[in-house]
């Protein structure tokens, strides 16, 4: 790997930092995108019989009636699964505190633990026929007591897993003492002011517009498997398939085609379908495809967010927090394939931009008979920020101080970076913030929203009989977690630049921003650069797209790979031009001597020269053949330590996460009669370090805020006491339409990360993180009623008014 301590390059030229239009759009606006279900037009279809019960024992599965269905190809139950395929799915992220991690079988074995758990797989001519067959399969269930609701589950009157006492998957305590050594509880006891309260956050889910999907092609002649999956990690799906099917890794390739949104749910893997479909494709020697439908996505993918938090805080007269003690009940659903990442992120990122005197956080991750909980954009941060920001507002209310003053009194100051929060982050590394400027961020936000002039605005509204309120929320987001990503950059003799990285794309515009990095680093025209992501045929080593890490980790890996290519190109050019490489520059794909533009050689020619040839097939390659060029007879055509070709590969492995931050403010209006809640203004100050493409970053913020608005006002998963998800459709689960999302005003602050060559921080999740906290604060300000539970509907607000 390259030297990491190279100073951040100043990208004063090139397309880095510019509002470049996206590469991806040409195909997506003409219907030429290739999403999972657009592939495999002749494949057989798979469909699943899923449990209608939240908790039941399978007595018998009777497939007899389905066997006569015309077009049926195969039916599989757990008993049909061979070897390791019959074992539970992997527990992807083990942790010492996860003492009772449990994962599902690919097809249910004996017991089902949530509505939607797959029990039988059917393969048929098409999806209609497969579903016909599914409907004729009789599963005889003995219904067991369902465990629904995290508090009920914590009381453990009934168990989700017979061998998990108390329904507790994990229990973890982290303590950071005050500088004087006092514990959080001691600091709170000794504080001039203390408050204690409870907060609730409901379940929501990623709900990308495209659900999951898998399409597998077995090549019997080659004994190889090609799998397409709508996944956030093709490299890891590949390894999982190879392991579960006992295939040599080089015989399995996995490709993430165009993916219609992910937001976290598609980082979980292997989903049962991701190993069952390839397994059956090989067994039957037929192409098979499974495309998740909307109801399946609701009941058998993953949810997130649901937590109950008990907070105690001690503070001084200025609102400085002296001690904070948070106890979290985290509902992890029926299984824990993704470990306890979400509550760990909540516990650590709860601290936000603040210096907390002493901190104690405890969580219990609890099983319930509901869909499993795995990261959804923000991944535990919205809950943590809700907790901290509601706490700040309560402190301000208690002291009668301005809410922004209380926050400012607790801010980490710009000269205190790197700032060590004294905890362990989700990547197992110390929680050390690399850079930021929180006071400036708050100043910008107050100016943008008009914080100081709001009281006048409120008075005027009141004079018109209207009720308005303002709220603010701050967050810090650890982004760009390791372990690593890689990049490969190849210049071919036609002058084109081919770039690949292993992580995947779900709409973030990676093809565009990575091409911007390459065009700038290499000095080539943007149009000459093409980028491939998430295709194991092109790049086999990768982790995946999550934790706002693509620009940071792959972006830097690609930049480092470019620097290798550049160095090699300059070396070869220096030879050819008889110049010192230090006097050379690359502009528009041409290497030239600084100050002597006529002494130049295009990269396409260097690509030819870099690859000594015996055979010519066109004019360009003729120049590289053994009699055309005049190599020094005393050294081999490819020098020792060199490789043929103008290409480079490098990896970026961050020492630790880089910490982006931001602050949001909103003005809301609540209808005095109907309790309707309307967001009048929404303002964002966002700091993700150096911006590669401000247009794309703003798009990410808009989308994140929209999801945040959904989580704050509309979206919740409603389970009844039987564990039935009552709103498993877009009719009943209220995702915001254009009419529900306010115009978002955005300003950027750039505090470059000192940790990586490009100085960038992640931006993917930021928008969603503080929204619930901000909206709650604004409603509270409008109504004068404490808001402790999100989302909040007009009915909820009406009930709060009545209870006042």
């Amino acid at each position, binding site marked *: 790997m390259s030297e990491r301590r190279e100073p951040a390059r100043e990208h004063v030229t090139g397309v880095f930092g510019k509002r470049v*239009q996206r590469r991806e759009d040409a195909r997506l606006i003409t219907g030429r995108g290739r999403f999972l279900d657009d592939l495999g*037009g002749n494949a057989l279809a798979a469909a699943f019989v899923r449990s209608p019960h939240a908790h039941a024992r399978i007595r018998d599965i009777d497939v007899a009636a389905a066997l006569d269905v015309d077009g049926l190809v195969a039916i599989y139950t757990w008993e049909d699964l061979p070897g390791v395929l019959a074992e539970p799915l992997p527990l992807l992220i083990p942790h010492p505190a996860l003492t009772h991690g449990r994962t599902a079988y690919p097809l249910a074995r004996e017991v089902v633990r949530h509505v939607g758990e797959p029990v039988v797989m059917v393969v048929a001519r098409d999806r*209609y026929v497969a579903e016909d067959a599914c409907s004729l399969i009789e599963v005889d269930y003995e219904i067991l007591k369902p465990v629904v609701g995290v508090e009920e589950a914590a009381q453990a009157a009934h168990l989700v897993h017979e061998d998990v006492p108390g329904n507790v998957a994990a229990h973890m305590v982290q303590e950071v003492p005050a500088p004087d050594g006092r514990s959080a509880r001691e600091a709170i006891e000794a504080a001039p002011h203390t408050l204690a309260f409870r907060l609730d956050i409901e379940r929501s889910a990623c709900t990308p517009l495209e659900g999951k999907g898998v399409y597998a092609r077995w090549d019997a002649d080659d004994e190889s498997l090609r799998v397409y999956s709508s996944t956030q990690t093709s490299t890891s799906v590949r390894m999982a398939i190879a392991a579960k099917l006992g295939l040599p890794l080089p015989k399995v390739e996995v490709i993430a085609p165009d993916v219609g*949104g992910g937001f976290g749910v598609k980082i979980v893997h292997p989903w049962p379908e991701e190993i069952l479909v390839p397994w059956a494709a090989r067994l039957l020697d037929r192409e098979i495809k499974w495309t998740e439908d909307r109801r399946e996505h609701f009941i058998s993918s993953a949810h997130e967010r649901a937590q109950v938090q008990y907070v105690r805080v001690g503070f001084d007269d200025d609102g400085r927090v002296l001690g904070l003690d948070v106890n979290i009940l985290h509902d992890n659903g029926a299984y824990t394939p993704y470990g306890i990442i979400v509550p760990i992120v909540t516990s650590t990122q709860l601290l936000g931009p603040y210096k907390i005197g002493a901190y104690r956080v405890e969580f219990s991750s609890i099983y319930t008979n509901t869909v499993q909980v795995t990261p959804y954009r923000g991944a535990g941060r919205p809950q943590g920020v809700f907790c901290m920001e509601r706490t700040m507002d309560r402190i301000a209310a208690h002291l009668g101080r301005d809410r922004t003053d209380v926050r400012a009194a607790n801010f980490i100051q710009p000269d205190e970076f790197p700032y060590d929060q004294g905890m362990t982050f989700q990547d197992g590394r110390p929680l050390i913030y690399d850079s930021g400027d929180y006071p400036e961020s708050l100043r910008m936000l107050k100016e943008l929203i008009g914080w100081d002039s709001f009281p006048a605005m409120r008075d005027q509204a009141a004079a018109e009989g209207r009720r308005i309120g303002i709220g603010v929320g701050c967050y810090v987001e650890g982004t760009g977690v390791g372990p690593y990503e890689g990049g490969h950059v190849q210049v071919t003799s036609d002058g084109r630049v081919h770039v690949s990285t292993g992580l995947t794309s779900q709409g973030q515009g990676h093809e565009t921003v990575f091409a911007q990095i390459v065009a700038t680093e290499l000095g080539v025209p943007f149009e000459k650069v093409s980028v491939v992501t998430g295709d194991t045929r092109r790049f086999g080593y990768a982790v995946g797209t999550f934790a706002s890490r693509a620009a940071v980790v792959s972006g830097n890996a690609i930049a480092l790979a470019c620097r290798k290519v550049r160095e090699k190109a300059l070396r070869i050019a220096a030879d050819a031009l008889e110049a010192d490489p230090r006097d050379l520059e690359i502009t528009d794909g041409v290497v030239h001597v600084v100050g002597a533009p006529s002494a130049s050689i295009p990269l396409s020619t260097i690509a030819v020269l870099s690859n000594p040839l015996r055979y010519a097939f066109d004019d360009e390659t003729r120049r590289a053949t053994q009699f055309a060029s005049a190599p020094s007879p005393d050294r081999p055509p490819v020098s020792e330590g060199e490789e043929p070709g103008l290409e480079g590969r490098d990896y970026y492995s961050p020492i630790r996460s880089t910490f982006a931050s931001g602050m949001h403010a909103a003005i809301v209006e609540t209808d005095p009669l109907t309790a309707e809640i309307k967001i009048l203004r929404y303002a964002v100050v966002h700091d993700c370090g150096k911006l590669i493409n401000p247009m794309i970053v703003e798009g990410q913020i808009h989308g994140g805020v929209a*999801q945040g608005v959904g989580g704050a006002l509309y979206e919740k998963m409603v389970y009844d006491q039987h564990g039935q998800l009552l709103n498993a459709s877009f*009719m009943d689960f209220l995702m915001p339409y*254009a009419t529900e999302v306010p115009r978002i005003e955005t300003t950027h602050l750039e505090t470059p990360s000192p940790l990586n060559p490009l100085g960038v921080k992640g931006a993917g999740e930021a928008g969603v993180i503080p929204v619930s906290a901000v909206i709650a604060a604004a409603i509270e300000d409008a109504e004068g009623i404490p808001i402790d539970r999100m989302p909040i509907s007009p009915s909820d607000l009406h009930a709060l008014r009545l209870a006042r």
Partner: protein
Amino acid sequence: MNHHITLVVNGVVREASVPARRLLSDCLRHDLGLTGTHVGCEHGVCGACTVLLDGEPVRSCLTFAVTVDGREITTVEGLATGGELSPVQRAFAECHGLQCGFCTPGFLCTATAFLRDNPAPDDEEVLEAISGNLCRCTGYQNIIKAVHRAAEIQAEEAG
């Protein structure tokens, strides 16, 4: 039992043999190979599957293919003319009105019909026009901008 139907899709006569229960969305995607039309919910809420039926936007996931025998259908593949992108398509790219692109075909078809009927809409009218389509990526702000921009491009080109 299959039914023989003839559709005029993007100006081309297409024939298909489909069971009565085949959704128009599935017919377009799987029988005719026009996979640009996407299916996001199959219960008529998300609008991703919106196509133009005799010029009017409909949810192809709520339409049986056999019920539109003989009718004209425009899908996202048919919005460009002679290889030139339509004003709506250009505006969506220009304004960053799409991210993953899955819902985009529905928005493009919806906006195309809307701007044909109302070439100079105000903010409220644009909001209303697209308020039946879900997008999980963009937060709609740039989609709204794109519809306005498309109206502008249309006007420039007409003038």
